[in-house]
């Protein structure tokens, strides 16, 4: 109950914040697309940034000063193979960003060149990459948080048939037993990623696992708005999670209920089959000894 009133109070404040935010994204989009921008957004942006700091992978600022073009071409197309081959630079990168493994990118050499030139120009200008497509299709409305929660928990199925988020992800306070633990805890996802980054991930989830799940079954624009709103709300509903993200509290109830259930099921099964045959000869011998 306390939780609920708290939510009510912050709701207007935070919707206001979101509205201004969304409007900002809208205005930044009206630019000409530099070459490679689309590919970079689709292929790289989930994990990489230019001039924005390390994400899952390294910041690509000044990439061409560090590596040769030939190396880059080979690495981008098959990073894991290069790591296995024992390339020193590749090994160092894999070590630094473990356990992440950069997936192979089936890009043509021209596409790679386009991306590299984009990196070069942004490095020179000292600008951050701002994805043009990574914006919400509409402004966030009051009901979107709850709608987003329902999409997250699977109460409402995703339109294109993708798996609900809760199957692999947890958010503090979702569901009776929390969400899945295969993917990372998303409680603080909105501080981990900047807003356009998060939207971009929702649009093109380029992580190997997510890609295989959502590649053919992408989220709709409407779902992205709702989920984004829900992720944003987590920031306000659980301020504590911002300082200590991704550590789920150990819930002792879970094993306790499990153990109790096990004992109970044994008792029940024993009662149901209490007339089962427990051996004939042993009884004969025992009764004859009396």
């Amino acid at each position, binding site marked *: 109950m306390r939780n609920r009133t708290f939510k009510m109070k912050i709701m207007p404040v935070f919707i206001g914040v979101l509205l201004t935010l969304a409007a900002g994204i809208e205005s930044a989009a009206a630019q000409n697309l530099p070459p490679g921008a689309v590919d970079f957004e689709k292929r790289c942006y989930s994990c990489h940034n230019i001039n924005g700091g390390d994400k899952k992978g390294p910041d690509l600022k000044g990439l061409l000063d560090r590596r040769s073009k030939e190396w880059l071409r080979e690495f981008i197309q098959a990073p894991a193979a290069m790591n296995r081959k024992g390339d020193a630079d590749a090994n160092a990168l894999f070590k630094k960003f473990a356990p992440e493994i950069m997936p192979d990118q089936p890009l043509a050499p021209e596409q790679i060149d386009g991306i590299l030139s984009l990196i070069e120009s942004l490095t020179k200008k000292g600008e951050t990459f701002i994805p043009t497509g990574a914006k919400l299709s509409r402004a966030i409305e009051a009901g979107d948080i709850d709608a987003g929660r329902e999409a997250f928990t699977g109460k409402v199925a995703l339109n294109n048939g993708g798996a609900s988020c809760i199957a692999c992800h947890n958010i503090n306070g979702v569901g009776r037993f929390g969400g899945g633990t295969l993917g990372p805890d998303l409680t603080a996802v909105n501080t981990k990623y900047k807003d356009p980054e998060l939207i971009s991930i929702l649009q093109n989830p380029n992580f190997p696992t997510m890609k295989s799940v959502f590649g053919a079954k992408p989220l709709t624009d409407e779902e992205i708005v709702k989920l984004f709103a829900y992720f944003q709300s987590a920031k306000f509903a659980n301020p504590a999670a911002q300082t200590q993200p991704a550590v789920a509290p150990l819930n002792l109830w879970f094993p306790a209920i499990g153990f109790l259930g096990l004992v109970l099921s044994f008792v029940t*099964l024993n009662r149901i*089959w209490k*007339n*089962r*045959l*427990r*051996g*004939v*000869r*042993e009884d*004969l*011998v025992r009764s*004859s000894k009396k």
Partner: protein
Amino acid sequence: MDVRLQISMVFHLDKCIGCHTCSVACKNVWTDRKGAEYMWWNNVETKPGTGYPTKWEDQEKYKGGWERKNGQPELKMGGRVLRVLNVFHNPYMPKLDDYYEPWTYKYEDLLNAPEGADQPTARPISMVTGQHIDIEAGPNWDDDLGGSPVYAANDPNFSALTEEQQAELFEIERLVFFYLPRICNHCLNAGCVAACPSGAIYKRGEDGIVLINQEVCRGWRMCVTACPYKKTFYNWSTGKSEKCILCFPRLETGQAPACFHSCVGRIRYLGGLLYDADKMLDAMNAQDYNLVEAQRDLILDPFDPEVREGALRNGIDDATLEAVRRSPVYKYVKEWKLALPLHPEFRTLPMLFYVPPLLPVMANTDAGTYDTANDELFAPIEKARLPMQYLAKLFSGGNVGEVSYALKKQYAVRLFKRLETVGDMDAATVKQALHEVGMTEGEAEAIYRLTSLPTMDERFVIPPSHREEAMQMLGDDFLLDRGEAGLGLRDRPARGA
């Protein structure tokens, strides 16, 4: 009329000497494999006794066979719903201890033991765990009434006897027992077939042999419960169930099954029977006392032209019919009514028949004393030490008339032959005995010949199996039609021993 062929058997209990050669022959051929050590597809029991597995006849415990419910036969272990509910935990299974824990001896200790004050011994070790065990039971633990206060005294068939009769059976100089060799009965309405959730058990259309398809069996073990004779076994090594296959590879090449072939007393007969499948439901639904008669009614006369027509219609050819006409089983079961099914009240329509034993031959009680030197030489069967009710419980669903008819007939044959060969009988008495069972002298002679002097070819009349035709009936792509399920066989079948 739906004419089918069944390879059927007769065991003549009056000739069984309880030597277990049949069991050993079967064990050596089929069940000396890992996981099958405890199985005895053929076993010989002493009656009275509890048999193998212990008290297998007690269906209140094991829930085998069929029972009549609302005029319909239903498996005693429960209908479909109950079986599904119990599918992961079948509650009516015999434990390994009820069969016995198979063992061998550590013979190498005899040679490898260090020198000491005592002779080395070969200790028994379990063939299941490999650990030392104290042997407490075996597949024939109560042989010759061994341990009778524990075992024979608890024979389930004693329910047909009064307390006095039971006590009499164990009195000194009145003790009586006989042997009961058992294999799979290859029943017409086998409980195992009906209970199998995987559809792995089937009755071969061409000869009625009941088999378990090892490729399809998933080891649910419903058949173990459903078979009232406890003749399907679970192989703990392969995870599949197994049973007597009536040595069909031998039958198909014209040889008698191993247990038949090796029988020292030559008690076993094998031959084809034709039966009318349309009448089966009636036979299963008969009252207990009527079951033997109903089952006998199923069996068709192979000399009847109408039957021949029906047989040809169902693909049974003249060569097979010819074999069926010479079938010793047909004579014993249908013509002479000497052989009776074992526990027909289980309602599986077993197709192995037993000629009830006439033993002991020279018994007489006079004023409570036991006298072997009897005036009559052969004591009348009414005075037999084994009560008729006991035999009736075993072989005719409690119908004493069937058993006593079979015994009287055998008795009459003895008197008839005694008169002929020794001549110290009163001819009128013999005639009276023959007349009582409605037997001609010719029939008595025939019974005598097939009982005492049969050749191998007379004992085993195996109909030609026509495997080549069976293969054609399966169609060209029968190899593609094979079912696949479960984990399959874990071991490739290997050649050689």
